């Protein structure tokens, strides 16, 4: 098990490294000079040159890259050329907001999706199942930005029940989280149902009934327990997507999180911020993958065995 984790970790590091190189190169291939963006056109060319030297834009690309990487290893993500602040300081203010948003969204997703999926699978083809399936198909097909705009229109503008933007009181959370959760929950319900149906067809479920277990024990200890293996994987894999979704939602609801920071930075060609954000998302993705691998191994002894570590 230990060796397996180390192998996965190394693979993850390689992945992060590749992403960082790609992000770095892509930003430098983009047209436009960051120094031009920072200063007025009338500013003296020599002053611009001094600025370039100050931010290290005059050095060859590999050197710039390794300077950046070295800084990150020391906790220095560079300085935002737009906001004239260290990126780490920007992160400190923004990350908690996004984490809170995504955390609540994910928890809600799980709490709604798993029971509904289980119930739908068990009551397959019933009225309940049909309603849940049609609704979930409907919501899964709607992009979250449209849901967000509609929610604002209905609950914010027409009914005036909830604030349409900002971030401060709990009522501010409702609409953005609803917009994020709807689509994800819908597809998670469908996935849980499919997985539970697969497990229901397994012979060991019959065995569990045949040895005289009550229905509830069979459903919880044998069906749900085994279906959760895949559900966990998918939930963990969906975290980076959830954060990707947060980028859009934060912009619509004007929430000062990582998402809005990233979009602003891209529009402003704020290199350091974009690089750091994308790197952060890459690291997060790798961590989520690693977590889901480890959790699967804990939940499924067959995988534990195939990892070679044994017991």
């Amino acid at each position, binding site marked *: 098990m230990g060796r397996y984790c180390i192998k996965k970790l190394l693979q993850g590091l390689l992945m992060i490294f590749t992403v960082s190189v790609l992000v770095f190169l892509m930003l430098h291939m983009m047209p436009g000079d960051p120094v031009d963006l920072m200063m007025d056109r009338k500013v003296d060319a020599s002053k611009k040159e001094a600025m370039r030297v100050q931010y290290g834009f005059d050095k060859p690309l590999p050197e710039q890259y390794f300077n950046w990487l070295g800084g990150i290893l020391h906790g220095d993500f560079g300085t935002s050329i737009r906001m004239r602040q260290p990126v780490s300081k920007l992160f400190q203010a923004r990350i908690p907001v996004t984490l809170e948003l995504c955390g609540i969204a994910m928890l809600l997703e799980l709490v709604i999706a798993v029971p509904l999926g289980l119930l739908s699978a068990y009551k397959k*083809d019933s009225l309940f199942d049909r309603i849940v399936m049609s609704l979930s198909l409907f919501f899964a097909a709607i992009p979250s930005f449209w849901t967000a705009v509609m929610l604002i229109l209905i609950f914010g503008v027409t009914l005036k029940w909830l604030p349409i933007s900002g971030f401060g009181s709990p009522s501010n959370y409702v609409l953005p989280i609803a917009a994020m959760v709807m689509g994800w929950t819908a597809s998670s319900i469908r996935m849980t149902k499919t997985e539970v149906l697969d497990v*229901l067809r*397994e*012979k*060991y479920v*019959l*065995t*569990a*009934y*045949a*040895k*005289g*277990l*009550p*229905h509830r*024990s069979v459903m919880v*200890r*044998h069906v749900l*327990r*085994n279906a959760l*293996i895949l559900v966990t994987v998918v939930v963990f894999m969906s975290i980076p997507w959830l954060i990707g979704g947060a980028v859009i939602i934060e912009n619509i609801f004007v929430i000062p999180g990582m998402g809005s920071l990233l979009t602003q930075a891209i529009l402003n060609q704020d290199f350091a911020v974009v690089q750091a954000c994308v790197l952060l998302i890459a690291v997060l993705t790798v961590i989520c993958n690693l977590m889901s691998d480890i959790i699967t191994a804990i*939940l*499924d*002894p*067959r995988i534990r*065995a195939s990892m070679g570590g044994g017991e």
Partner: protein
Amino acid sequence: MNDALLEVNRLSVGYKVEDGWLSAVHDVSFAIRKGEFFALVGESGCGKSTIASTIMRLSLDHNERLEGEVRFEGHDLIRATEPEMEAIRGSGIGMIFQNPLDSLNPVYTVGWQIDEALRAGGMDARSARKRTVELMEAVQIPDAARRANAFPHELSGGMRQRVMIAMMLSRSPRLLIADEPTTALDVTVEAQILEIMKDMRDRTGASVLMITHNFGIVAETADHVGIMYAGELVECGSVYEIFARPSHPYSFALLNALPRRRKRDGRIQTIEGTVPRILGESRGCRFANRCPRAMDCCRTEAPPRRELGADHWMRCHLEVNA
């Protein structure tokens, strides 16, 4: 039939399919006495496994239609509620499945899974584990105390089937249903498993309903045999009667198809055609289209039950030669 443990009376099972009702089992009646080893024999798809899962009421298919009755110790299981069935499964009737490779839950140790059955019967965790190890030793699993902590994938097919037997016997059921328990196993392992089952029957006095397509197994284990064709029980009798005097043309053909009864040219005798799929009501004998001795009435009239001796009967239009 006062000593009957299980009585199946005029049982029919139908499944709703796109173009009507598929008749999986039709008008089947038989009885199993206490301590008897009863074998249900037939080709694949003849409805023998359907009978097994109907007795246990294990079908998860909501599109099925059950008729007739299955009396276990006097209670009609067809009309039993789910809680009543929960009380009967495990403690009254146990069941072993065809493929031991996927009948055990891969995420729990085998010992835990036997414990679970015992705990469902109200035993506490500590005595359950003690009993589990005893049960595993009884089915000849070497090093049982250690093997109890193994996961199913760490055991061979034969070991897993032993675990299944131990699990299903853990609450001393009066009837054990074995649905082709050795089909997925090696021949040598098969012999061991059958030996264990016979031994269990002798020690506990439980009845066994063995479902198989293998006449070798029937000859080795069974006291009584029922031969099924396309959802109907066509002949039923003691194992000696069936092997000595197979009377229904299908039973006769089936026994002739055994590899050891060769024609002179060394070919295995087969039965022409395939088992029909019966939709809706069928008139006449279901074997008529493949029967070498079919008559006109076979296609139009349901065959009558003919007594061939004590506890030996068949459903056929043919006259019985006295």
